């Protein structure tokens, strides 16, 4: 199965890196959407279905916590896995994010295999199921 993914981070370069990491690691992506903050992510979700969201916490306009709250309040999105890709290390803040519904987090800097392993685990896939990703376009 190939997944629709939404990358949410105010750093365009970080979004590029995560997208590339996922692609090169063989993670199966159908479409890859991007947003620069939580509000833009919600705008993307108005018109597009995603299977997984990777989001930073610290962003202007609407941060990761705001996004998690908005998703939890929406029946359509409350069960979509959200993984945080973040520099946050404060245990209380990370627990707050998990309490708001995040399924896990990866701290920056990260190794590519860390993201891949966590996503596969969350999506219920094993490494043996992975295939080379099809060409995808990332829309912003």
């Amino acid at each position, binding site marked *: 199965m190939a997944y629709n993914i939404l990358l949410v981070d105010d*750093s365009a*370069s*970080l979004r*590029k890196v995560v997208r590339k990491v996922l692609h090169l690691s063989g993670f199966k992506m159908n479409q890859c959407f991007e947003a620069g903050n939580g509000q833009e992510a919600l705008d993307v979700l108005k018109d597009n279905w995603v299977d997984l969201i990777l989001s930073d916490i*610290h962003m202007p306009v609407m941060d990761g916590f705001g996004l998690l709250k908005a998703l939890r309040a929406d029946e359509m999105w409350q069960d979509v896995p959200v993984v945080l890709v973040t520099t946050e290390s*404060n*245990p209380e*803040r990370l627990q707050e994010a998990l309490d708001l519904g995040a399924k896990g987090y990866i701290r920056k*800097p*990260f190794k590519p295999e860390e993201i891949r392993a966590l996503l596969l685990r969350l999506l219920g896939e094993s490494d043996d199921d992975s295939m080379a990703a099809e060409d995808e376009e990332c829309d912003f």
Partner: protein
Amino acid sequence: MTTQWQPKMKSVISELLETMFFMSVDFEPQVPVETYRLASSIILARDLQKIQIDLFLTEPFAREAASNFLGVGGDEVSSHDIEDVVKEIANMVAGSYMTRMEDGNWNLGIPSMRYLDSGGDVPDEGLPISYLGEQVGLVILSEDSEGK
């Protein structure tokens, strides 16, 4: 200016630049060949305490870091890419430094970036970053407690 923070900061910067930028640096001061053109700042805050981390980089180093980070050639890197990467470096430095602090519960701010004029105002003291025998960066950590 205290230098107690520098051992932890060296570990943070080395790990970050090697893991995500594929660059191995050292912290021996060298004579800078290029002036620092880019500066990024980020604040850690807790109650009435504030820590500010300032990162100064030369443009060629920032460009190479952006090129490595993005996996593209140096000539494919735009100035916007470089600015963004410099901010992200400051962001990850601060976040990683937080994990090494003995007392937690700091809140991490959002990094800012600015260009420095030629001969811009850069402090003399700090942690130098050297790459391939040239000094390419400087990190300064300053602490402030209200009422001090």
